[in-house]
């Protein structure tokens, strides 16, 4: 059972309300996406911590329904 881009965006925004999420479907199979997530809540956090926040938002989907999510995260530029 794959995930749709809108499901991914919805889950991320549910957990990180101020997130600006840009998702690209890499393979059209609902399994391989690239996502760029920008949120003020990432400020001061390491990349690992930022990515872990996004994975937590996906509630276990990452690595299961969702095989590949090429992720880039950043805090908004001041």
């Amino acid at each position, binding site marked *: 059972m794959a995930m749709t881009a809108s499901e991914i965006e919805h889950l991320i925004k549910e957990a990180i309300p101020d997130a600006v999420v840009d998702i690209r479907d890499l393979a059209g199979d609902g399994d391989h996406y690239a996502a760029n997530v920008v949120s003020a809540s990432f400020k001061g956090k390491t*990349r*690992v911590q930022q*990515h*872990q926040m996004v*994975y937590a938002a996906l509630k*276990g989907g*990452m*690595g*299961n329904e969702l095989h*590949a999510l*090429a*992720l*880039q995260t950043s805090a908004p530029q001041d």
Partner: protein
Amino acid sequence: MSENPVFDRIKNEVSSDDVVLFMKGTPVFPQCGFSNAVVQVLTYLGVPFKGINVLEDDDIRQGIKEFSDWPTIPQLYVKGEFVGGCDIVREMFEQGELRDFLAQKGVETEAV
């Protein structure tokens, strides 16, 4: 022995070498594009590393995800510290941070 023998095994592996890569396949025959990407980065920088094929050991394959609270493979460890998966290693490399990070940790890279 602690209550989690798999974590003990992982701790041993992670400290058994300066640079340890939990991956799908082996450095010579990577069996996943993301694992291969990290192998290529380390090879390009001339960093010797130990590849651990999680496909050969399901305990390690699942255990490593809990150990680092990271849901995917590959996972790169330097001096016992979790650095990241494919995205983070590639981003650090592309932004020229990886070589400095490794140098800070006392890991030699080849001048390229």
